[in-house]
């Protein structure tokens, strides 16, 4: 068991013929993900000649889902088209949509998210590395070579910082159930508490690592959730204690606004909720093992 993706995941790739789409589709197939179709409006009827498989291309998600029985999609399209792609996937009724695209305007995401809230679609991202279940399926760009199957769940707003921690776990022989990169944008799909809830309910996950950063108050909400609803141990790291206020630290959502969104506030909230917080990502592995 694991959360969100596994061997039963049947994946569509929206934007499969682009540079990123092509490269990472091959990577996902190589990892063992069942990629059942691609979606590129105007290229329906063509095929994606992957390194490990030939994947049919469709004009629309609806059509692709009907033809292939897909139950998830991943989006590799430019920011201008990504809101459309998310809405299309939700409109087609896919239960899981993962959007890697960066640089989507906030007001667009507010509209997309309001639409998704009326549907039964879970969104991961945008501006995220996706998620991976070792031994199950990879839906995103987290390197398959650094993960190993096991029982630690991981949820993070960051990309390479997550890789760091996952890799350290793998090197110490600590496997992961699922690693979820929820992304660095201020308005997104699933947030910490949504993923924590799934980990709490997943029998194959024994404990959870959560990697936050400055900006917003998702970590504070997560702290309240952990205190009230979680029995599993949670270990956290919050990046950005040295970030200056008022500057966006690479991620659109990583900004201390006045006195809100600081690392100190988040760490205090988490510690008050019984979460152990590492002051150095290198120490996370020691803290859980």
């Amino acid at each position, binding site marked *: 068991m694991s959360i969100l993706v596994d061997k039963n995941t049947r994946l569509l790739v929206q934007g499969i013929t682009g540079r990123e789409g092509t490269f990472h589709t091959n*990577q996902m197939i190589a990892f063992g993900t069942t990629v059942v179709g691609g979606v590129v409006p105007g290229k329906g009827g063509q095929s994606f000649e992957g390194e490990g498989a030939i994947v049919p291309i469709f004009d629309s998600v609806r059509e692709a889902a009907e033809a292939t029985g897909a139950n998830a999609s991943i989006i590799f399209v430019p*920011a*201008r088209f990504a809101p459309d792609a998310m809405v299309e996937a939700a409109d087609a009724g896919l239960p899981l949509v993962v959007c890697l695209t960066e*640089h*989507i*305007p*906030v*007001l667009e995401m*507010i*509209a997309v*998210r*309001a639409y998704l809230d009326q549907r039964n679609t879970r969104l991961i991202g945008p501006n995220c590395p996706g998620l991976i279940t070792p031994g199950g399926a990879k839906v995103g*760009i*987290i*390197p398959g*070579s*650094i993960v190993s199957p096991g029982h630690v769940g991981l949820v*993070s*707003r*960051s*990309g*390479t*910082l*997550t*890789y*760091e921690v996952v*890799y350290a776990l793998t090197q110490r022989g600590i496997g992961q159930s699922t690693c979820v990169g929820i992304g*660095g944008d*201020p*308005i997104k799909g699933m947030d910490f508490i949504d993923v924590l809830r799934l980990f709490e309910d997943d029998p194959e996950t024994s404990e959870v690592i959560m*990697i936050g*950063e*400055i900006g*917003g*108050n*998702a970590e504070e*909400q997560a702290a309240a959730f952990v205190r009230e609803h979680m029995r599993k141990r949670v270990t956290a*790291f919050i*990046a*950005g*204690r*040295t*970030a*200056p206020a008022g*500057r*966006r*630290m*690479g*991620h*659109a*959502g*990583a900004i201390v606004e*006045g*006195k809100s969104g600081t*690392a100190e506030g988040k760490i205090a909230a988490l510690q008050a909720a019984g979460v152990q917080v590492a*002051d*150095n*990502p*290198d120490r996370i592995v020691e803290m859980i093992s």
Partner: protein
Amino acid sequence: MNLHEYQAKRLFAEHGIPIPRGEVAYTPEQAREIAQSLGGRAVVKAQVLTGGRGKAGGVKLAANPNEAEAHAANILGMKIKGLTVNKVLVDELAPGGIQQELYLAVLIDRGRRRPMVMASAAGGMDIEEVADKTPEKIHTVHIDPNLGVRGFQTTYLAQRMGLPRELWRQFQDIVTGLYNCFKANDASLTEINPLVITGEGKLMALDGKFSVDDNALARQPRLADMRDVEEEPLTEAEARRTGITFIQLDGNIGCMVNGAGLAMATMDIIKLYGGEPANFLDIGGGARADQVATALRLILSDAKVEAVLFNIFGGITRGDEVARGILTALEQIDTDVPMVVRLAGTNAEEGLALLAEADMMTAGTLSEAAQKAVAAGNAAAAAKATGKRAS
């Protein structure tokens, strides 16, 4: 991206918000002429992309055109928080004086995923401080994007602020205008502080703040053109052009990292081991030689940098490729600043071996790398100090 006060107010005015008459001056003589055309009395305000202009002496009242010229002469060229003032806004004074100062802003509430209007009768002050000390003085309503600002919402705000009833209608128009301006321009913040009640009993936006959603600049070309490149550190402007995210800080240890979260974590660890990060730098995905070279030049352009820490996680890109990229880049750069490279992930060992062969300082963990970089920085600083004393 932040706009200047004068740009903000002009955008507000496009949405029907009353602002003072005024013009931008680049020379004292221009300031004088503008004050003259406004009738003599005026306020001269430094236009720089930072707060605290008032305290720094960047805002002055002028009783006549001569004073306006004199103030402009003082303010132009002044440095405020490291930024040079290149222009001033010369505005008329609020007609009839100021009866009361209010606060009004539109921003995004991330938790509720909605734009939010924030208003307070405690205007003209630092709103963070108001929020901290007297949160009951701040009133908010959330906007449904499908409905826009609704009259009952502005009535609610006006009433809680204790605004005189005869101003409710004007206030509604201003809130609606500020929200429409926010939405039309993909703002992340539009703020009027103070919004004043003039002596003539009218509402007027005396000051304005405007932040644009960087991700929306592609569809807001007019705003993208408003960027004041003179105001930006040269390094940050160059980084932006080459697709690197770079933020100049004040410390002694430069760093170059792939990924924003990892870059922040790297800064944090430098601090944890006694250094101060000199910058935030996210080099993005691949760490190609040309990008590494550009990034390194940006870091080294800061004379305070005493050591540089590379922290690259090899995921899809393998560690040996990254190492070769770094070595190629270093061939192009002439520097004696010590450098520590930390590689992790796929093929990290092969990469570290390549770097060790080339006599680079390397590290296997982030902690080790930070410690080495801080130590190297301290040693270099000490050597420099000794060298200076010796010479």
